[in-house]
């Protein structure tokens, strides 16, 4: 059971994120929802790489190399995903700055971008 807790957390994070994106009206909260989904996916990747009773996968100066190490590949994948997430987050926040400048509101129902007349 205890080993399933990360997976429950993953499901909870993704569902909470989806709920936030769908039902919250503030644009900033939508962005927070997306980062929640992203954290859920990252947590899932990290959890996949974990082995029972394992140590960090550092080979250098390791006194006992026969120890179980957790998988380094999912950690590298997570890192890449985090880097991409930072870029997406920065881009979304700068869009929000511009949207606020034009529409004077952050309500997602009012930021619809109709035809320009």
């Amino acid at each position: 059971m205890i080993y399933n807790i990360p997976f429950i957390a993953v499901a909870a994070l993704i569902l909470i994120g989806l709920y936030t994106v769908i039902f919250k009206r503030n644009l900033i909260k939508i962005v927070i929802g997306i980062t929640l989904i992203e954290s859920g996916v990252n947590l899932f990747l990290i959890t996949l790489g974990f082995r029972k009773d394992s140590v960090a996968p550092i080979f250098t100066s390791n006194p006992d190399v026969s120890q179980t190490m957790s998988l380094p590949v999912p950690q590298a994948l997570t890192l890449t995903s985090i880097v991409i997430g930072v870029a997406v987050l920065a881009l979304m926040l700068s869009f929000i700055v511009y949207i606020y400048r034009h529409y004077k509101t952050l309500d997602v129902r009012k930021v619809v971008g109709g035809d320009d007349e």
Partner: protein
Amino acid sequence: MSGMSKIVKTISNIAFPFVMIYGLYIIAHGHLTPGGGFQGGAVVASACAMILVAYGSVWTMGKIKEKRLSILESVGAISFIVLAFLGIFIITEGVFFKNFLANTNLMFGTTVAFQSTAANINTAGVIPLMNFAVGLKVIAGLFAIVLVMAYATSKIKEGKTK
């Protein structure tokens, strides 16, 4: 955004070199310990962001031009791609991203025995160089993002008060 009080400025002056050096350490030891270009770059950029918060975006914008940062950023990216291209051009039978410096006893080219050895910074071939390139790009890119966003929001606030 205007600057904060004198206490904040002094403390960030003291903390800035330490954070900076820690970030550069993480970049330089990317091939030995957890970390690398992005992580170290993020630490350095957060040090710069600390200065930005303490002194205000208008002051920082006067010191550092955003255009310079974007050139620095593209220099980092170009050196990364060029290092990857050198894998094709320098050695015969090379491929893109080939580690052409490893095990050559040139720069970062010490051969390591296949066992758990003590950390030797002079290893891993082009990986440290690529870490430097990525670190440069991340420092410049993240700082430019933070700087421009802070400057833009401060402009919005000014427009409102006027």
